[in-house]
């Protein structure tokens, strides 16, 4: 049940979750990544740059990420459980075998093959010509899609702040690993988008873009994902950060990402008050997004019914993601972003 959150697998691995923080990591579709990349230490420039981008200030008001946290992020990389085909040489093994430096396989020589890749040692032993195949290291398409509907303003701190912090952290990890990072927001449709970020130097653009996001509009995840996926057929890692409080449903949009062959990771952000409303009496509840009003008499029975509906709804999302090999992580806005990234996203298989 929702009221009994699982404890972190390794409490010592990071900051302990707060008593009421809700963490669930779906590992239903986790597959071991075949590629391997060394994690390079963050340079002093990055730290300086990150420090300039994230000044020490209250979490809700100033920089999204703490400089020390940024420094720790440089030791991480995003995990792609599939071989993807990038556009530029990167630090990720490509589907395309060719001129990379990492040996992958042999095949028989065919006319036209580059002589330089003939393994002469084998030829001398077997009197047959084989060429060596190398995995071409390409970049990873990382798309971060942030729900900026008005409902994301709920929570203390707000769900949107956590979403931006997570997007900043994941995006930063991608940038330092030379992945191609794209950040977009959505509400009732695709919103502003920051495309083709690559390299550590674009971290400033990423963070500035994220800081400028404000909550507005209503949630239509399906429409937003359809338009996003229609713009590019490239596969890659798609990270959706949303509260999934979409009256139109979340199923169509997420299924579409699967049909496009995207590796989808859903980070479900909820506010404490959405999980356990602290309301009572005769109320007229007004939907922050749609303005729809519902008159309720909230007492113990009503709260019990709400909890049942909530559990069923969250269980439905979890089961849906499990069935369709979509990674799923649920959290509340009160959980610190560094704890989420360094601990739970690691457990969830998004970073390593």
């Amino acid at each position, binding site marked *: 049940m929702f009221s009994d959150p699982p404890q972190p697998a390794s409490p010592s691995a990071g900051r302990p979750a707060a008593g009421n923080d809700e963490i669930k990591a779906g590992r239903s579709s986790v597959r071991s990544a075949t590629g391997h990349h060394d994690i390079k230490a963050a340079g002093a420039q990055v730290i300086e740059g990150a420090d300039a981008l994230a000044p020490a200030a209250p979490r809700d008001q100033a920089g999204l990420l703490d400089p020390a946290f940024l420094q720790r992020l440089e030791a991480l990389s995003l995990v792609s459980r599939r071989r993807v085909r990038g556009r530029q040489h990167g630090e990720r093994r490509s589907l395309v075998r060719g001129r990379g430096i990492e040996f992958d396989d042999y095949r028989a020589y065919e006319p036209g093959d580059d002589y330089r890749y003939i393994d002469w040692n084998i030829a001398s032993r077997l009197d047959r010509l084989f060429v060596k195949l190398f995995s071409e290291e390409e970049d990873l398409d990382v798309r971060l899609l942030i729900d900026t509907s008005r409902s994301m303003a709920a929570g203390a701190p707000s769900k949107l702040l956590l979403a931006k912090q997570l997007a900043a952290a994941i995006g930063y990890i991608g940038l330092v690993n030379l992945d191609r990072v794209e950040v977009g927001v959505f509400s009732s449709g695709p919103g502003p988008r920051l495309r083709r970020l690559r390299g550590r130097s674009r971290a400033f653009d990423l963070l500035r873009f994220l800081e400028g996001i404000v909550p507005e509009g209503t949630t239509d995840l399906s429409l937003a994902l359809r338009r996003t996926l229609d713009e590019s057929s490239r596969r890659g890692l798609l990270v959706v950060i949303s509260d999934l*409080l979409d009256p139109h449903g979340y199923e169509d949009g997420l299924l579409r990402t699967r049909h496009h062959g995207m590796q989808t990771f859903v980070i479900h952000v909820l506010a404490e008050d959405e999980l356990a409303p602290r309301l009572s009496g005769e109320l007229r509840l007004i939907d922050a997004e749609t303005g729809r009003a519902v*008159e309720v*008499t909230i*007492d113990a029975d009503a709260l019990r019914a709400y909890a049942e509906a909530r559990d069923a709804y969250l269980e439905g999302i979890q089961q849906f993601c499990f069935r369709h090999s979509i990674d799923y992580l649920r959290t509340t806005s009160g959980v610190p972003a560094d704890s989420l990234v360094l601990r739970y996203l690691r457990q969830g298989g998004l970073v390593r």
Partner: protein
Amino acid sequence: MTFGAPAALWALAAVPVLIVLYLLRVRRREHVVSSVLLWVKSQPSWAAFRPSRRVERSLLLLLQIVAAAALAAALAQPALLGWTAGSGDVVLVLDGSMSMRARDVAPTRFDRARAEARDVLAHLGPDRRAALVLAAAHPLVLVPPTADRGRLAAALAHAQPWDVAGDVRGAIDLAAQLVPGPHGRIFVWTDAARSPVPALPNVTARILGTADENTGVVALRVLPDADTARVLVRVTNFGHAAVRAPLRVTRDGSAAYGATLALAAGETRTVVFPVSSPRGKADAGVLRAQLDVRDALPDDKTAEALLAPAPLPSVLLVGPDDPPLERLLRVAPVSRAAVTRETDPAAWRGYDVVILDRVTTGAVPPGRYLAIGTVPPNLPANPSGVVDAPDIATWDRRDPVLRFVDFGDVHVRQALRLAPDSGRVLAAGPSPLLWAYESRGMRAIVLAFGLGDSDLPQHVAFPVLVVNSLAWLGGDTGGLQAGQTLEVPAAGGDRAMVVRPDGTRIDVPARDGAFAFALPRAGVYRLTTPAGERAVSVSVGSETAGLIAPGPAAAAASQPPVQRVLARLALWPWLVLGAAAVALGEWALATRRRGGDA
């Protein structure tokens, strides 16, 4: 506990209205949430919108109901009639009017008054004295001031309203004499249907009754004729709405008359119809008039009257020869007449009326006397000489004795100079010339001059005067009304049995030569004496006795002295304070709790 304005209890109907308004009103606190998606999905929570659930869960509503009920109760002016302070005596005055039999206050107004009077007695300290006064046709002190609670309780239990319009004002005056001084308290239970309660500083009035619609038989009389009789039935609608009243008159159970009377508000309708009534027949039957109307006062829907005329008196003439008078007695309506010169009262036994004609006697025993030219010494009208040629200047034409009597041409040569101490003067010149006296067992008429000293026998007034006098002296009961006391000459008997209209029997001893008993109810009374059995019919004491509309409580309360007394006992200020406190608490609670509504 009493209510000064019980009709205000209808304000309690505001309580269900309050509940309905509570259910209908929409006063919810608006609260913005990120999404109502989960609230909509929580279908069972919609059950929380059931009105019954809201009602049963709402403390605020409960407080509002308590406040409204307290206010409604305050409007009814509840008061406690018992008290613990004070040291004076108490007089309980119960209105004994017929209207107190109305059943709009269960079981009847009088029974309610009786119960509340018992409550007052129960709250009195053991050393406090109390008296009980019944406001019947005349104020009756049922129990003088006493601390004997048992006696008071017994008197209360036996007290019953009469078929009269009670003299409440007289009863209060009498009560004020019973408890003189500033500490005496008078509690009055009445419906004030005919007159408001007088404003006295020490009077606490309790107005009973709510209904005002009543239609009743106010008179049933038989007017004898030669061989027939005419029956008069009078019906009055005391209410404020027109009614159709089916009237049925039976004679010994057989239908004698029937009609449906359409009576406008306040209208009185008189019906006269003939019935056969053979003269001289002792028992010609009982007429019973009945109205088929249902209202709060069923007691005045029936009336009974005797069809037979009253028995004629027997007359003894004592004195010297008096040819005109003797000739008249031969034809006058008397059962028998005799003449004697014997002045010993022992020789007069067996006669209803004794005519003392110019004879000097000693003190006469109680009885019926027509004294002509003489005054028995025990009558309070001792003559002081004579008056020559007195002129009969005035006479009371309304008195039954002088009905149809005209003294205009009568001349008197000499008359006794009467100096009555009591009684009533019926005709007078320089001195009383015709004087009537009535006291316990004694009824007398004194004509101050002898027939030979005037030309009265030559006038029509003579036989009319004698016949009227004999009828009055003989106890003509044709006009008896409830509330009166009937005195019948004992004629030598010592006990009589009276059967009242309701069937109760009372044993009446002879006192001062007569059987005297009260007539509290209308109907036919049957009297059994050693001389025989006779019946008398009694009509309602007043034609306004059927007024049942209670007097306005506000009028009584508006009189400052009464109001001041009531205020000391009233509960409504406390109820108003309680309602205000509850309303304040409800407001504080509503503004403090989250999601609450005031």
